[in-house]
Each structure stands twice: as C-alpha cells, then as structure tokens.
C-alpha cells in the first residue's frame, strides 16, 4: 500500500511541478483568484497539520475528549508548552535545526519534570 502511495503521489507531484512549465503558452498563467488562494496554502495546511499534534490529551487528539478539563490539560501539557518554546525559537532564529533541537529538549525536559501523558 505504501508503494501505491509513493507511486501515485510521485506522479501527482511531478504533474504539479511540470504543470505550468509545460503548459505555459497554452494557458495564460494562473487565474488571479487561484493565485491569491495559493498564497495561503502553506500557512493553512501547515497549521492544520501541526496544531493538532501539539494539543494532545492522554496521547490522543483533544477532540476525542471534549471536556473543559481536557482542554486545560492540553494547553498545559508538555507538548503544547514545548511547541510554544519551539515556535519562539523558530521566530527568532529562523533555523529548522534549532527549532527541532530545542523542541525535543523541551519536550524531554518537561515530560521528565511533569511526567509524560
């Protein structure tokens, strides 16, 4: 199944990359509205990917336990706090490596201090 994903995603991604490189001349560039929308894809998609990973309760998604107590637990949990620290590092250093290192250290440290979930 993984290889199926690899193959289809590979062909699809190549098509995306090749799209306008080969089509320019037949299509007059991307329509303006689509271009405006594309600008927000990184922020929206990355946030949708990332935020749930940092708000976890008892090792699972927050939405699975929709109580006030678990919301509080999620926002005070080691993953969220490590994420805030890592975000600050990302903002200041603009370095992926620093963000990863600090984030991992923060998580390990916080879990050690407060116990893993």
């Amino acid at each position, binding site marked *: 199944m993984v*290889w199926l994903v690899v193959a289809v995603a590979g062909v699809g*991604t190549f098509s995306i990359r090749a799209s306008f490189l080969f089509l320019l001349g037949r299509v007059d560039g991307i329509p303006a509205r689509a271009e405006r929308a594309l600008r927000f894809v990184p*922020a929206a998609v990355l946030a949708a990917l990332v935020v749930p990973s940092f708000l976890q309760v008892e090792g699972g998604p927050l939405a*699975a336990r929709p109580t006030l107590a678990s919301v509080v637990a999620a926002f005070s949990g080691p993953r969220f706090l490590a994420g805030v620290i890592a975000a600050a590092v990302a903002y200041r250093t603009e370095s992926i*490596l620093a*963000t990863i290192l600090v984030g991992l250290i923060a998580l390990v440290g916080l879990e050690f201090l407060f116990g893993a979930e």
Partner: protein
Amino acid sequence: MSAAASYASTDCGQGGRNRQLFPLNHHNVRMSFRGNFRSGARAVAPVTVGVIPFGLIAGAAAVDAGLSGWQAVGLSMVVFAGASQLAAIELLSENANAAVVVGTMLVINLRMMMYSASLAPFLEDVRGARKALVAYLLTDQAYALSVTKFADSDVSRLPFYLGAAAPLWIIWQLCTVAGVVAGAAVPEWLPLGFAVPLTFLALLVPAIKDRATLAAAAVGGGVAVVAATLPFNLGLIAGAVLGITAGLLTESTLDIEGREVEH
C-alpha cells in the same frame, strides 16, 4: 549574428538565445555551463545546511513509523517533497487510507504549481527531457533562489537552476539514507517522532507574514483541532480549506478597508 554574439556563444551551449553580452570575466565571454552551474551551487550552499536535519528526519521518522528503509528512500526519490513526505509518514503511522494520504500530499505540494507558473516564462526555451528534469528537481529553495536570480541578472538559467537544485537533491537522498540507518540507533526516551511536527512548526512560523496568513493559520489550526476525530482525515482537509478561505476573506477585508481609508 554579430561577431560579438557568435564569439559569446562558442562555449555557452545555450544555442545563442541569450544574445546579450554580459561581461563576466576578462575574456568578455558568457560563463560556460559549468560556471553558471557553480554559481547556482554557491547560491544554494548555505541553504543545504537547513535541509540536512529535515532529510534525516524523513529517513528516521519513516522507519520509526513502520516503513521499510526502501520505502523511505522511495518516498524521497519518487516524491522528493519533504513536507508531504513527513505528512505521509505521520498519516501512514495512523493507518490512514491511501487516498487520504495521497490527497494530503498533493494538497501540501500544490504550492509547487505556483512555482511552476512563476518559473515557466524564464525557462521557455528549455525543452523535453531537460524541462522534465527541471520539474522533477523543483523545490522551495531551488525555486526561491532561481526566481530571484533570474529576475535580477542575465545569468544562464538552466545551468544556474540545476546548480542550485541538484545539490539539494543529492543531500536529500543522502540524508534520507543516513536517517534510515541511524534512526534505528535512536534511544527509546527520545521522542524522535515529535521532530516531525516540530519541523512543520519551523516551516509554519515564517509562512505567517501578515494578518491574512495569520488568519489562515489560526483558522486552519483551530478547525483541524476541533475536527480531528473526523474519518479520512477530513479534519485536515477542512482545516486547510477553511484556513485558505479565512486568509482570502481577511485579505479582501483589509483591501476594502484600505481603499475606504484612501478615498
């Protein structure tokens, strides 16, 4: 062709399309393919350092999530798109279905359509297999370096692009393999899997450049959290779609406000 232009195209290898003479050395001849390639490689050198941890994770996290070393390398060679690879790894570890994984990967990689459109006018003269190579090697960094260079200078484009893009490919493959091999040696208490969301976070922060992108991220993240239990990873898709919508709305609202203030 004038004598000057034909002299210029003797070692250019570009078919004399860029006929302007650009005095790059004391021979007053355009740099060769190799020279422009090196120029691209020099431009990308500082960027490759940042790619290394990302590539190591692409290898290590894949194995950690249950993929084989071959599958990890396969992702890196066939798809060659880091953010989507990491998303795939995370989804596959959660036993998401194949269509969801592929769909998510393609949504994440959609930004490359923008790169394709933006680079296309600069590389119109490149044909066939070479153009396919350009497409295959397209990454955020290769794009960013090339498009800025092409806009500002008369560099020979295909060699420069390849000089910037090829090292990234090589480093990516090497680091994936290294990650696969070294990933097994990572100790139990080290939550290497957490490096995946951290990497995305590191990419997300600079993507938030103004209020509209902030809105896109806030809504995208918020919706994804709330909808996290929906099947088929619909929460992710819903977050992405609503996030993009929020960004567009914020942008139009801010535009309108700007116009009202001016008039």
